[in-house]
């Protein structure tokens, strides 16, 4: 006979196992998915290795002579940003999933147990990731000149608090989004939150090292506002535990690290625990009969496709269908938005980085890199357009009388050009004008734009490419994608070099027609390769 306590323990363990699997695998899988535990273990191992590697990359920005407080704050700033991204993703998938009501809500599980087990899995995995991210830094903290063995346990504790702080803040942000905007709008605001965190990550990782080099973080620590920054709290805790030389500033920072974290955790996981049941029920409830049509609602999409400006561009009915599907996916489907926007936000962040960090470099160097950067935008967006959690909808294209996936792709890419490429291009135009004050230099964007358009045609040349037809990229697909990206980057660099040289020697007027002719030839070849692809099989 199983006692109530044993039954509760079995239930808790079952939920922990479930959420751990969902944390690592996601909720969806491809229709031909096989279950291979060995492969899963390998994938987890290599993703941990990748996190250790990213931690190593972070250290490349750290100065060797940083004082202990500056070094610890630097580490916590990066850790917080990486954790923030992980926490937003994990909370979106596990804590605020709208799909689990039919699976779990009719089972005898209390909302408190549901919340606690989910939080436990998220915290445990994020902590392991954070430790992996900091493992090399911790060794450095022990063996560097101003280091101490105490840095190791101190940093393990402070990273734990950092994880708890980041997760609690994200959960509170989700709650706030739900309460302020309602569940219909949750997805939109969650995506905005994720894009914002990604932007902060990229800006932070690029700007902080520059500011460190130019201003010296050592001087910052003397400012009173420094104590307001969360990374400084955890850095202060580290320093207090390592140096054992308490100062009022360190006590204040460490106190805030412990106090604010515990308060945020109490609010997120204890105070709002009862409200969590309402949240899960609300997420599972069917929407009201009339869903508000927002700025990105159905009417907006159809009006845009029918506008006088776009109608001639979308004359082909299949392309028009692809355009509408693309617009709907880019503006409504959470997974697609989360995959595309945070990835491309870095390309919009670069010019901002030049502006904020002060542009001291050679303009020609920037122009050499421009086609490569733009090529990556084109490639990344087209590659991401393969995936959607609504992948089953792509069956419609498979049994429609279409001989090639090309027209659908071209239509969806037009939507991508409008929503992603155009805004980034405008940002670059403004950045170049503000940086140089020379409108003539905008001509340097022409090769970059052509190159981006060509790179966007590379992913659909792969066999089996069909827009929004797959769930998640597999490890092999990610690896292959990274390798394939190297070629356009190298070609982009070469093109940028030629373009900069032509500009320098006054040959640009001859270069542009040759560029246009080359673009048209390569575009023709690429499009032919896409249209030769067969559509039908999965």
């Amino acid at each position, binding site marked *: 006979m199983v006692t109530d306590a044993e039954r509760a323990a079995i239930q808790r363990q079952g939920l922990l196992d479930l959420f751990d699997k969902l944390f690592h695998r996601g909720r969806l*899988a*491809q229709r031909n*998915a*096989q279950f291979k535990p060995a492969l899963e273990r390998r994938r987890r191992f290599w993703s941990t290795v990748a996190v250790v590697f990213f931690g190593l990359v972070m250290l490349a920005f750290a100065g060797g002579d940083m004082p202990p407080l500056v070094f610890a704050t630097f580490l916590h700033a990066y850790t917080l940003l990486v954790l923030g991204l992980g926490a937003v993703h994990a909370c979106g998938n596990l804590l605020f999933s709208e*799909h689990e009501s039919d699976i779990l809500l009719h089972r*005898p599980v209390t909302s408190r147990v549901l919340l606690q087990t989910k939080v436990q899995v998220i915290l445990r995995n994020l902590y392991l990731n954070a430790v992996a991210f900091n493992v090399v830094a911790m060794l450095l903290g022990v063996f560097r000149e101003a280091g101490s063995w105490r840095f190791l346990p101190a940093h393990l504790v402070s990273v734990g608090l950092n994880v708890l702080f980041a997760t609690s803040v994200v959960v509170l942000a989700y709650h706030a989004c739900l309460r302020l905007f309602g569940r219909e709008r949750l997805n939109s605001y969650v995506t905005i939150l994720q894009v914002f965190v990604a932007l902060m990550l990229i800006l932070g990782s690029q700007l902080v090292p520059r500011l460190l080099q130019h201003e010296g973080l050592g001087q910052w620590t003397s400012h009173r506002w420094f104590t307001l920054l969360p990374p400084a709290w955890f850095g202060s805790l580290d320093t207090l535990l390592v140096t054992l030389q308490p100062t009022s500033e360190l006590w204040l920072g460490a106190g805030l690290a412990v106090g604010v974290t515990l308060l945020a955790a109490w609010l997120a996981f204890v105070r709002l625990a009862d409200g969590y049941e309402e949240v899960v029920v609300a997420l599972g*409830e069917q929407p009201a009969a009339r869903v508000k049509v927002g700025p990105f609602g159905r009417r907006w999409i159809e009006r845009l496709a029918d506008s006088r400006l776009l109608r001639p561009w979308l004359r082909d009915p299949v392309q028009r269908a692809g355009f509408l599907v693309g617009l709907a996916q880019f503006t409504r489907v959470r997974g697609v938005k989360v995959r595309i926007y945070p990835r491309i936000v870095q390309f919009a962040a670069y010019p901002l980085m030049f502006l904020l960090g002060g542009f001291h470099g050679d303009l020609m160097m920037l122009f050499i890199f421009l086609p490569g950067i733009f090529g990556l935008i084109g490639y990344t967006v087209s590659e991401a357009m393969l995936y959607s959690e609504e992948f089953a909808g792509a069956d419609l294209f498979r049994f429609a009388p279409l001989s090639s996936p090309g027209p659908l792709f071209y239509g969806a890419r037009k939507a991508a050009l409008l929503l992603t490429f155009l805004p980034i291009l405008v940002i670059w135009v403004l950045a170049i004008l503000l940086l140089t004050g020379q409108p003539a230099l905008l001509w340097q964007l022409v090769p970059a734009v052509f190159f981006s358009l060509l790179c966007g045609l590379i992913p659909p040349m792969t066999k089996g490419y069909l827009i929004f037809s797959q769930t998640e990229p597999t490890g092999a697909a990610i690896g292959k994608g990274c390798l394939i990206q190297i070629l356009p980057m190298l070609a982009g660099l070469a093109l940028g070099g030629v373009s900069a040289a032509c500009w320098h020697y006054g040959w640009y007027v001859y270069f542009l027609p040759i560029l246009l002719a080359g673009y048209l030839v390569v575009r023709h070849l690429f499009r032919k390769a896409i249209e030769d692809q067969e559509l039908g099989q999965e």
Partner: protein
Amino acid sequence: MITLRELTKVFGTQTAVGGLSLEIPAGQIVGFLGPNGAGKSTTLKMITGMLKPTSGTAIIAGHDLATDPMGVKRSVGFVPESGALYESLSGLEYLRMVASLYGIAAEQADARIAEFIQFFDLTWDVLTEKLLAAYSKGMRRKIVIISALLHNPPVLLFDEPLDGLDVNAAMGFKTLIQTLAKQGRTIVYSSHILDVVEKVCDRVVIINQGKLVLDGAPAAVSAANGGRSLEEIFTALTGGDQLREKAENFARTFTDHGDRR
């Protein structure tokens, strides 16, 4: 076994279920019918404790939904229409997880799962080697049905349970629920396939726009309506009596427009 009194659910300004009262004794199979949007799934979700009723009471297997929702959930097995599953889990992982939610120990769960997979013509290889995303629709349905029966509940709620099942599996399932009812389980069977409902159910309940419009044994209902079939009674009650003429007229538009290929 199931007592609903003035059960109501309102979404915003729309009343999905309006004051539904029903008494279903143990051992009865009730066909729960209604057109799309009539409030069937909402009612079932309220009975399972997934949705909080706006007003009214529901007593399931002696547990009051308002005061003892966990007791209700322990007593109910539910097959939702959506057939939602965690696709990234293997079949065995999913069923073990469901068993654990009811406090069933691993060895006991495996023994029960083995009995079910034999009955539903599944194999351990499929259950362990493939993720649920790779299962056919029928196989997924079988997994959802097993997950509803695994804890041996006294009340079973099925929302389109035969969706995706082949003829043999469907036949086996129908015999299974009839036998379970004879053993004293209460079964609510929601479906649009009226022939099956007519054959399997002891009683038919039809709701329309969230209100009860018919309640009785299939034979009695038919006799009271001049010997008409359940399908004819259903369409008459739910405003679908012009459907045949409408469909014939619409089909003619295909010929009028010619071959569009």
